[in-house]
C-alpha cells in the first residue's frame, strides 16, 4: 500500500514541546502503571463460568443467548433465523462455517425452507453490500468474545466484511466457547502483541455488544437504530 | 486532652448555641476546651472567589492563633477544610507552607473528632423528634467525613432519623455563589427544601453553618415550619425538643 502524507507535523509538534517547556522527545518509555485493576476482573474463571457471566450480561444488553453443541448447531441456527423471519441471510466468508459443518446445510436452506443464504463475496463488493443492506439476518463468527461486557470482537478482512454485522435487520453471532476471555483487556492485549510483533492490525476491529440502540429521546432506551434491531448469540461448545 | 475550638465567623456571630453545645459536648468527653481569642474568619469567601493574595492575611492570623493548639476542632466541615487548603495557598512559601501543613494535621470537624479521636459513638443525647440530616458538600467530598454524623445521630435517644432523598445534592450555598448567582442558588435551595419536605421531618439537622444559614433562611422566608438545627445542639440535648 502506498504511504500517506503528513502535513504540518513539525511546527505543530514543536509548539507542543514548547508549551511543555522542553525539547521534542524522540523516545518515550511507556511506564508500568501503578494500578492495574483490569487484570483482576473475572480472573481465574473457567470457560464455563465465563459463559455464565456472558449469559447474565446478555440480559442487560437485550440479546438472547443460546447454548448449543456442534451437533445441534445447524438446528439451533435455523430456529433463530426463522425466529427473526429471515428470508435473506448474509454471512461472512469465514472458514469456520465449513469447520462447524454449516456450509453444507446452507445449501439446503433454499430448497427446504426458502431461505436464501449469501456469502460475502470479495470479488463482487457492490452486490455484497447491496444484499447485506436488504438482508433480514447477518451472521458472523466471533473472533474473541468478552464475557464481562457481552461483546463479540470481529476482525475485518477480505472475507469478513464490515457490513455483515451492521446492515442486515438482525444479527446472529456464532461464538465458539474457546473464544471467551474475561474482558476487553485480553483482546486489546492480543492486538498490542500483534503491533509489537509487527503483524498487521485489521483495518477494522469491531467490538459489538448486542443490537444497536439509542437513548437520545428522553433517555428512553430504544433498541435498533442504525445497526441491527435484534441480536442473538449462539455459544457453541467446542472443547 | 486539650482542644482549641475554631468557632468560625458564622458560629461566632449567628449560631452561638451551636458553639455552646460544642463546648459542652467536648467537655463531657473529657476535653479541656480553649478558645484562642485572636481567631477571625478562615478566609474562605475570598479564597473561593479567587482572591488568594487577599486571603493570606486571614490565613496567617489563623495559623498563628492555633499554632500552639494540640487539636483544632471546628463545628463546620467547610471551614475545617479551609484549614486544609492553606498548604496550597502558601505553596512555594516554605515557612508558611510548613506551618499550614502542621495546622492541617491537627484540624478536625466536630463529629469527625468525636468519632475518630475520642472514639465516641453515643453522646448520651436524648432528642424527641422526626429529623433528617443534610450532608454538606465540603464536609463529605473534600474533608471526607461521611459516616460520623450518622453514627452519632443514630444513637440519639428518641430521634427518628429519616434519609434525605438526593442527600448528596448541594443546597445552593457555595459561599459567594449564594449572592453572585442568587437566581440559580434559589432553585437549588428550593429543591433541597422540597426533598426535606418529602421526608415529613420536623427538624433539619446539619453540620455546617453556611448550609444551615442558606436552607434555614429560605425556609423562614417561605414560612415553612421545619426547624433547622446544628448537629452539636442535637448531640448535646437532654430530651428538650
Amino acid at each position: 500500500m502506498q504511504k500517506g502524507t503528513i502535513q504540518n507535523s513539525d511546527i505543530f509538534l514543536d509548539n507542543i514541546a514548547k508549551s511543555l517547556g522542553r525539547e521534542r522527545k524522540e523516545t518515550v518509555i511507556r511506564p508500568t502503571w501503578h494500578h492495574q485493576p483490569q487484570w483482576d476482573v473475572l480472573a481465574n474463571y473457567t470457560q464455563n463460568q465465563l459463559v455464565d457471566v456472558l449469559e447474565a450480561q446478555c440480559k442487560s444488553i437485550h440479546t438472547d443467548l443460546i447454548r448449543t453443541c456442534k451437533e445441534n448447531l445447524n438446528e439451533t441456527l435455523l430456529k433463530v433465523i426463522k425466529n427473526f423471519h429471515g428470508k435473506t441471510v448474509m454471512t461472512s466468508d469465514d472458514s469456520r462455517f465449513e469447520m462447524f459443518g454449516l456450509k453444507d446445510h446452507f445449501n439446503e436452506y433454499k430448497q427446504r425452507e426458502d431461505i436464501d443464504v449469501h456469502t460475502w463475496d470479495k470479488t463482487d463488493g457492490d452486490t455484497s453490500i447491496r444484499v447485506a443492506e436488504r438482508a433480514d439476518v447477518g451472521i458472523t463468527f466471533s473472533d474473541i468474545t468478552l464475557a464481562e461486557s457481552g461483546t463479540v470482537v470481529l476482525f475485518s478482512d477480505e472475507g469478513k466484511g464490515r457490513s455483515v454485522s451492521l446492515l442486515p435487520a438482525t444479527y446472529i453471532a456464532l461464538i465458539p466457547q474457546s473464544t471467551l476471555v474475561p474482558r476487553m483487556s485480553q483482546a486489546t492485549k492480543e492486538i498490542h502483541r500483534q503491533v509489537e510483533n509487527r503483524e498487521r492490525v485489521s483495518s477494522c476491529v469491531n467490538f459489538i455488544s448486542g443490537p444497536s440502540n439509542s437513548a437520545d429521546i428522553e433517555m428512553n432506551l430504544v433498541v435498533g437504530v442504525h445497526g441491527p434491531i435484534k441480536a442473538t448469540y449462539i455459544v457453541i461448545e467446542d472443547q | 486532652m486539650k482542644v482549641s475550638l475554631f468557632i468560625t465567623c458564622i458560629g461566632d456571630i449567628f449560631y452561638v448555641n451551636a458553639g455552646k453545645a460544642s463546648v459542652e459536648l467536648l467537655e463531657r468527653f473529657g476535653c479541656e476546651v480553649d478558645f484562642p481569642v485572636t481567631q477571625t474568619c478562615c478566609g474562605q469567601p475570598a479564597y473561593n472567589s479567587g482572591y488568594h493574595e487577599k486571603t493570606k492575611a486571614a490565613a496567617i492570623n489563623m495559623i498563628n492563633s492555633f499554632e500552639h493548639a494540640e487539636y483544632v476542632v471546628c463545628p463546620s466541615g467547610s471551614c475545617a477544610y479551609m484549614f486544609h487548603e492553606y498548604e496550597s495557598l502558601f505553596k512555594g512559601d516554605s515557612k508558611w507552607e510548613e506551618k499550614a501543613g502542621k495546622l492541617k494535621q491537627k484540624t478536625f470537624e466536630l463529629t469527625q473528632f468525636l468519632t475518630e479521636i475520642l472514639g465516641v459513638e453515643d453522646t448520651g443525647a436524648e432528642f424527641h423528634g422526626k429529623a433528617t440530616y443534610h450532608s454538606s458538600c465540603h464536609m463529605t467530598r473534600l474533608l471526607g467525613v461521611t459516616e460520623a454524623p450518622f453514627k452519632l445521630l443514630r444513637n440519639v435517644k428518641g430521634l427518628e432519623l429519616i434519609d434525605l432523598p438526593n442527600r448528596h445534592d448541594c443546597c445552593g450555598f457555595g459561599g459567594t455563589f449564594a449572592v453572585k448567582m442568587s437566581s440559580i442558588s434559589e432553585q437549588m435551595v428550593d429543591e433541597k427544601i422540597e426533598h426535606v419536605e418529602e421526608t415529613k421531618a420536623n427538624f433539619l439537622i446539619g453540620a455546617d453553618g453556611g448550609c444551615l444559614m442558606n436552607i434555614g433562611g429560605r425556609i423562614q422566608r417561605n414560612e415553612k415550619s421545619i426547624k433547622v438545627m446544628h448537629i452539636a445542639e442535637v448531640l448535646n440535648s437532654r430530651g428538650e425538643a
Partner: protein
Amino acid sequence: MPMHIGEKEFSSRVNKGLEDDFMRGAVRSAQGRLQTNRAKAADELGDWEEWRYLGQEIRQHTMENLDFYLKQLSEKVAERGGHVYFAETAEDANNYVKQVINKKNAKKVAKSKSMVTEEIALNDALEEQGCEVVETDLGEYILQIDDHDPPSHIVAPALHKNKEQIRDVFKDKLGYTNTEKPEELTLFAREQLRKEFLAADVGITGCNFAVAESGSFALVTNEGNARMVSTLPKTQITVMGMERIVPTWEELDVMVSLLTRAAVGQKLTSYVTALTGPKDETEVDGPEEFHLVIVDNGRSKILGTEFQEALHCIRCAACINVCPVYRHVGGHAYGSIYPGPIGAVLTPLLGGYEDYKELPYASSLCGACTEVCPVKIPLHEQLILHRKKIVEDEKKSGFGENVAMSGFGIMAGSSRLFNTATRMAPYLVTPYAKDNAISKGPGPVKPWTDIRDLPVPQKERFRDWFKSRKTGG
C-alpha cells in the same frame, strides 16, 4: 466564535434556562437516570477508585509526552496509507477538510457525532461551499432538523428536548405522522438516515481515542452511526482534538472502559469500532481513502499551565450529569458547546475570559463533578484557579467586589478589627432586623435577602459567652 451558542449575555442565558420548565424537567429526569446508571456501573466494577487512578496516570503520562505520541500516531497512519494533517486553528482544519471534499467533488457528507467538529464549526464551513452535511447521531439529527438548535450536552445533545417537542419537529420539517413514542420516532429516523448513509460521498467522524502505536482510532457509539459512516462512503475524514490519544491498545481498553461506564453506565457501548487506515485493497467495504485531521485550536496553550489537567477530559459528561447548576440552567446557559463543570473549565481556556469570565462562577464548588470524574480532574479546584486568574491576573472581577474583598481580607486578617466589626454588627443591622431576622438587607446583603432571610447577628457572640463563662465559672 464557533464554540459559542445562544445569546451574548450570561445572565440572559441563565434566565432563559431557569424559565424553561420543559427543558428543566427533561434535564432533571435525564440526570437522575444517568447518575443512577453511572453509580451502578462503578459499583459493579468493585474497585472503581483503582480504575480512576489508572485513568489519571495514563492521561498524565500521555499529555506529558503528547508530541511523541502524536508523531508516532501520524507515522503509523501514513504507513497504512492514511493522510494526516496537523491543524493549528479551526480555520486550518476546516480548509483542509473543504479541500479534500472539493477534490472528491463530494455533494453529500454523512457525519457521526463529534464535539471537535462542533467546536470548529465544520458544518458551517462545508455548507458555505454548497455541500450537504447530514448529522447521523439521533440526537444531533433532531437538532439539525430543528433549524440547527445547538447541543446542550456533550453525550446526549438533544437532552433539553422532550419527546413531544421532537415529534413536532419531525412533523413540521419531515412530514412525520406517527406518535411521540421514542420507538416510532427512532424507527422513522432510521429510515430517513439509511438513505443518507447509502448516498453519502464522504463520511466524517470524530475520534474518542487514537492509538499511537498502530495509528488506529476508536469510535464509541450505541447507535451504530459511526460504523455506517466508516463503512459505506468511499472517503473518510476523521477529526480529532490533539489530546484524544492513548499510547497503546492496552490503554485504549482502560479509557474506553472508564468512558462507557462514566458516560452511560454501560460496560461497553453497543459498538466500539477501532479503525486503522483505509480499507485494505482486497477488502470490499470501508473507505478507499482516509484522512486524519489533528486539531490544536488553543489546546497547546493549555499544556504546561496549571490547567493542563483539563486536557485529560475524555468527554464522558459524568460531571455534567451530577452538576446541580447544570440541572437548573441547562446546557445552553453556558453559551458554549461544552457545558457543565468541564465546560466552565474548558470554555474560558479555549474561548477566552472576555466572553466567558462568568462561567467559572457558575458553580457552588460542591465538588460533585470532581468526585465522579473518571480521570480525576480536580474540576472544582480548576474553577477556583480560573477565579484567581480572573481576579489577580486579568483584573476582571469588578470594582465593587474587589473593594469588598479587600475590606474582608483586612478585617479577617486582623483580630482587633474583626472583633470590633462583629461586636458592632448587631447594632448596625438593627434598622433592618425584625423578629430576629433580616428580610430586606442593605447593600451587599441585598442579593442574599432577595431570596432568603438572614439571621440577626447576636449581641452576645460566642466569644463573649465563652469569656464570661470562664470568668464567671
